[in-house]
């Protein structure tokens, strides 16, 4: 009896796979929105400080970064645990900073050179001593537009 009824019924239609690309695309969108590209691999540990009065850094081509923090674990053997400076993909010394700024600036278009902004990305536990040294070096290199990278804090709760 059951057999007859089964044969009489229509077959289950094949599962439509036409929406599969859409699903994949929506996943792709999600990842696209959620990921942020990192220009360099951090060799130092950076947890940026928090602040409220932030301004956006526009025009990435005008911005150069200086990273400061304690070296990450795999570099600690070679570089110790003191706060270090990272320029591009290498550790650097404060003395190299001036040269770096001058070199980076001369690589820019002439009309854009005065607009060069240096973004200081430093760990929040950094001591001000090294930050002051960096600032002095930047002053000597006439890179006066700086930006202290920070994360947005919503509420004031120190």
């Amino acid at each position, binding site marked *: 009896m059951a057999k007859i009824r089964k044969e009489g019924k229509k077959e289950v239609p094949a599962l439509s796979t036409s929406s599969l690309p859409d699903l994949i695309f929506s996943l792709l969108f999600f990842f*696209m929105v959620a990921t942020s590209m990192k220009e360099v691999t951090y060799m130092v540990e950076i947890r940026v400080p*928090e*602040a*409220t009065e932030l301004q956006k850094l526009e025009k990435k081509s005008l911005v150069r970064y200086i990273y400061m923090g304690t070296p990450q674990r795999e570099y600690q053997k070679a570089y110790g645990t003191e706060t270090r400076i990272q320029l591009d993909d290498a550790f650097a010394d404060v003395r190299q900073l001036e040269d770096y700024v001058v070199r980076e600036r001369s690589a820019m278009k002439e009309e854009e050179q005065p607009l060069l902004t240096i973004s*200081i990305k430093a760990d*929040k536990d950094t001591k001000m001593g090294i930050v*002051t040294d960096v600032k002095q070096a930047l002053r000597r290199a006439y890179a006066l537009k700086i930006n202290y990278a920070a994360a947005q804090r919503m509420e004031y709760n120190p």
Partner: protein
Amino acid sequence: MAKRKCPEINASSMADIAFLLLIFFLVTTTMSVDKGLSRRLPAPLPENMEKQSVEVNKRNTFIVLLNSNNQLLVQGEFLNVKDLREKAKVFIKNEFNDPNMPVKKPMDVEFFGTVEVTKDHIISLQNDRMTQYQAYIEVQNELVAAYNELRDELSRAKFGMAYESLDEERQKAIQKIYPQKISEAEPKNYGGKK
């Protein structure tokens, strides 16, 4: 033919639509923007020049000291970072022409006419080499916030809208009334090396 078969929906254009969306998002998405506190460093001192202390009237300076234990000394008294903003605002504004607060000078400003402005005031921020960066940023943040709030208050009182949404000319006028003057003095080592 009792029941007509449901015609299959043509899905070949689905891919095109998806691509269109993809391209739209590709064009419009901005990777998470970097944010930070923008500041301007003073130009370097010429090497052969001796360090000369610029003559600034004492009542025009607002001295903020930050020591190696991240404690704040503002105008000679201990202060919590939370109270810095209010104190800086009172100083910059000098509403009641207090003789201990910055000198007010009349100045012509567009849209406002002649206004009394504390244009020579200076906020001097000094920190120790052992100060924590987070504490320093917090102080900077509070000082910038003080200016931003003052500008916003003025803008709301005068133009009835937020400072952010004003046009450039009006923003400039307000900036003239509340010029941002945060000086970072030459570094000194107060706490001694540890």
